[in-house]
């Protein structure tokens, strides 16, 4: 008879759609994108479908703050620096600034800084230790001063942060060593192009089927 641990954390091949394959999502980029997908998924649904969503929405605010922290750690990874084990946004921001200079991406960082510093530091001010929206009281057992939050505006700003950050890390990708040798370049390029083409063809067919068949 399977134990509770076997049921909740099963080994072997995923047995059905309930299983999360977490070994495939253990990177800064995936976790960053996952947070963005989750907040985009939750924000409109909580507001439209849930009765008195404040108690659930509280955690969405934390997720938005967490998205910023994970995003900054993604920058550090892509700039070739070890992600620091800190939740402190100010520390992470300064490390990113320094790492961008070392990676010769100062101008790209400056553009990101101009576009996103206000948002990042706003979240840092309201939740400096990543605990304000997770627990009802602080370490001295005092209630937080949390006020009100507009989840839709927060999601808009979070999504803009994500877009700008991904543009920055795409610039950093160019500095990464190539994963293949020159002699396999043509073969690899053909495989990559075939995959891109097939993905786009699927999207096109999907759009046309949705327009033509399901309407």
């Amino acid at each position, binding site marked *: 008879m399977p134990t509770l641990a076997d049921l909740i954390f099963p080994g072997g091949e995923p047995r059905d759609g309930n299983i999360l394959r977490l070994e495939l999502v253990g990177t800064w980029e995936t976790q960053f994108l996952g947070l963005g997908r989750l907040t985009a998924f939750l924000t409109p*649904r909580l507001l439209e479908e849930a009765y008195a969503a404040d108690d659930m929405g509280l955690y969405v605010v934390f997720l938005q703050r967490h998205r910023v922290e994970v995003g900054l750690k993604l920058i550090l990874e892509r700039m070739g620096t070890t992600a620091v084990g800190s939740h402190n946004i100010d520390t992470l921001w300064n490390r990113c600034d320094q790492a961008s200079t070392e990676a010769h991406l100062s101008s790209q960082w400056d553009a990101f800084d101009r576009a996103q510093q206000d948002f990042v530091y706003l979240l840092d001010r309201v939740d400096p230790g990543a605990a304000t929206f997770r627990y009802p009281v602080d370490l001295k057992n005092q209630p937080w001063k949390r006020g009100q939050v507009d989840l839709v505006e927060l999601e808009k700003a979070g999504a803009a942060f994500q877009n700008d950050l991904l543009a920055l890390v795409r610039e950093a990708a*160019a500095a990464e060593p190539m994963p293949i040798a020159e002699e396999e370049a043509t073969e690899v390029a*053909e495989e990559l192009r075939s995959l891109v*083409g*097939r993905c786009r063809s699927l999207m*096109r067919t999907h759009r046309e089927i949705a327009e033509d*068949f399901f309407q």
Partner: protein
Amino acid sequence: MDAMRALNPSSRKRLPDPRRAGVPEFEALAEVTEPLASSVEGLLERVIDTYEVELAPPSAPRPIDPAPRLTPFDPPARQAEARKAQIEWFVDHLVREVRPLTEAVDAVCSRSKSWETPVARQIHLDVTRFRSRLLRIGTT
């Protein structure tokens, strides 16, 4: 009481659920397909630029035939025929897309297994995850 009823989420306007618009597995796959294509394309451009690769021009995409139409005033037998034709059209197009896509995914999945740098490793993991979603469609 009316005020309480107005607050009841079940009586409020619901958002359309994207997973229920068509075939749910297909919808879920489509959501991640373009981001995957973009990141693979980024690496493709780097490979082409770095090693000055010259690829033959790609073949033109196959056109999609229009779906067979249902005509509301047709007799029931003709409507049943048209419905059958629509389902066949849908399955044909799905198979036509998914089979070569699976082959392309398998090739990159296997090729990228040993890639270790962060961006390249990310592509491997994304393609692997995408592959298992494709396999779910294949068994639907």
